[in-house]
């Protein structure tokens, strides 16, 4: 033990908490000694504190697979895919909210500006690609999951599976119910005249009802039916529960290196689809006009939304940068 005293030991212990548990287990004791020696020599140093906080944050990011190369290739790959999945889910939650408003607008009247029309086509193509990629990604995971559960192994998969399925059921049923509940999303004669089928448009609208600037206007929000406000609170929770369940399944399901490499290639395609969607949304926000009848009007929340989409795309790119090299190194 260093001679620096109990006060230095307490401060070293506090600084040590910046690091993740695995790191503390390996380096904690010797690092605490170094900190106590350093504190003994220089009792106050904001440079030391900032350095430890920075280094601890990096170690925590490394433990989740977003920085450094501390994980084994398979763990790194699974962590990268999980982050990619989370970034894609967040991207889609916001992106679909923007897109569904525009698709419903198109049911009432086609966009008057070419920029909005091109933007809608780009975003719709990206959504279609996302749906295909999700299906392709789910097939081998569902197969491995089903095999593991059927053989009675991997009992730790049952809880996340139940969570994901219950959340998906609540999310789907709620979205269908509330999609039918508003006349603007389907109760008019032009419902099949838009770019996408009316059922798809209103489902997506209801699924992303919670992404709204009404949260900043409680007076206007209070005029909504209580059930609708309830759904706006519950739906993001069900979405988060689905994401958590899916991430746990991805981490725990036995998957061969070949399947993991396949999933990482689909992840790369998903990032490209995100870029296409962002190009569409960005061109609408920059060039889109209010015509006709304000259906395609760009609001402040849309501009903020596009910035958030760009941030989520950057996170997805970062996760992919972590996953792809690990996929190349992960061999049977």
């Amino acid at each position, binding site marked *: *033990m260093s001679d620096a005293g109990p006060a230095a030991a307490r401060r070293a212990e506090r600084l040590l908490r910046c690091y993740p548990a695995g*790191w503390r287990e*390996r*380096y904690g*004791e*010797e*690092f*605490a*000694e*170094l*900190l106590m*020696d*350093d504190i003994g020599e220089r009792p106050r140093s904001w*440079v*030391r504190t900032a*350095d*430890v*906080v*920075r*280094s*601890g944050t*990096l*170690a925590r990011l490394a433990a989740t697979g977003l920085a*450094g*190369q*501390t994980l084994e290739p398979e763990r790194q790959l699974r962590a990268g895919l999980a982050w990619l999945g989370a970034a894609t889910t967040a991207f889609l939650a916001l992106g679909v909210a923007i897109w569904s408003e525009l698709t419903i607008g198109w049911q009432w009247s086609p966009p008057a500006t070419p920029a909005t029309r091109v933007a809608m086509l780009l975003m719709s193509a990206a959504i279609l690609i996302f749906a295909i990629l999700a299906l392709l990604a789910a097939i081998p995971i569902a197969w491995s999951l089903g095999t593991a559960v059927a053989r009675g192994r991997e009992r730790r998969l049952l809880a996340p599976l139940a969570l994901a399925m219950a959340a998906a059921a609540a999310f789907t049923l709620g979205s269908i119910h509330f999609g039918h509940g508003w006349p603007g999303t389907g109760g008019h004669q032009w419902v099949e005249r838009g770019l996408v089928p009316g059922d798809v448009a209103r489902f997506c609208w209801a699924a992303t009802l919670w992404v709204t600037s009404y949260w900043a206007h409680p007076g206007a929000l209070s005029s909504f039916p209580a059930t609708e406000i309830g759904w706006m609170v519950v739906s993001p929770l069900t979405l988060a529960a689905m994401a958590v369940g899916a991430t746990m399944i991805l981490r725990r399901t036995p998957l061969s290196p070949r399947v993991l490499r396949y999933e990482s290639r689909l992840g790369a395609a998903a990032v490209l689809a995100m870029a296409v969607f962002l190009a569409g949304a960005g061109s609408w926000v920059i060039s889109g006009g209010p015509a006709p009848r304000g259906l395609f009007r760009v609001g402040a929340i849309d501009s903020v939304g596009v910035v958030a989409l760009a941030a989520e795309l950057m996170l997805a790119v970062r996760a992919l940068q972590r996953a792809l090299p690990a996929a190349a190194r992960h061999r049977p």
Partner: protein
Amino acid sequence: MSRYILPLVPEARSSTPDELEALATFGRYAGPATLILSSLAEGAKHGYALTKDIEGFAGVRLAPGTLYEALSRLERQGLIEPLESHDRRRPYQLTATGATVLRAHLDAQRRVADVGLRRLAGRSELA
């Protein structure tokens, strides 16, 4: 930056794959890594002894977080290894691979330094 180090290092042509990988990732973190490996070239040291030694010969004080970030990376790359801990302080020593990589890196740095100094000397003669 790291990808440009290999062509400068003649020893790399006869190195093992592990050594090549270590060399390839060395350049990006060359600052603290060179200081730590140079300090350990004298013998095994624990964290605080490393800090004081480096401060003494390079005039640079590595902050604790930076020091352990580099130590864990060098250990992962197999350039250093931990010894039995003494009174909670764990000493580290240079491995054979670490010595090879350090020598190659310092030779490359010396060649660059020689060229720079020679050119600076020629410049002062012109002036």
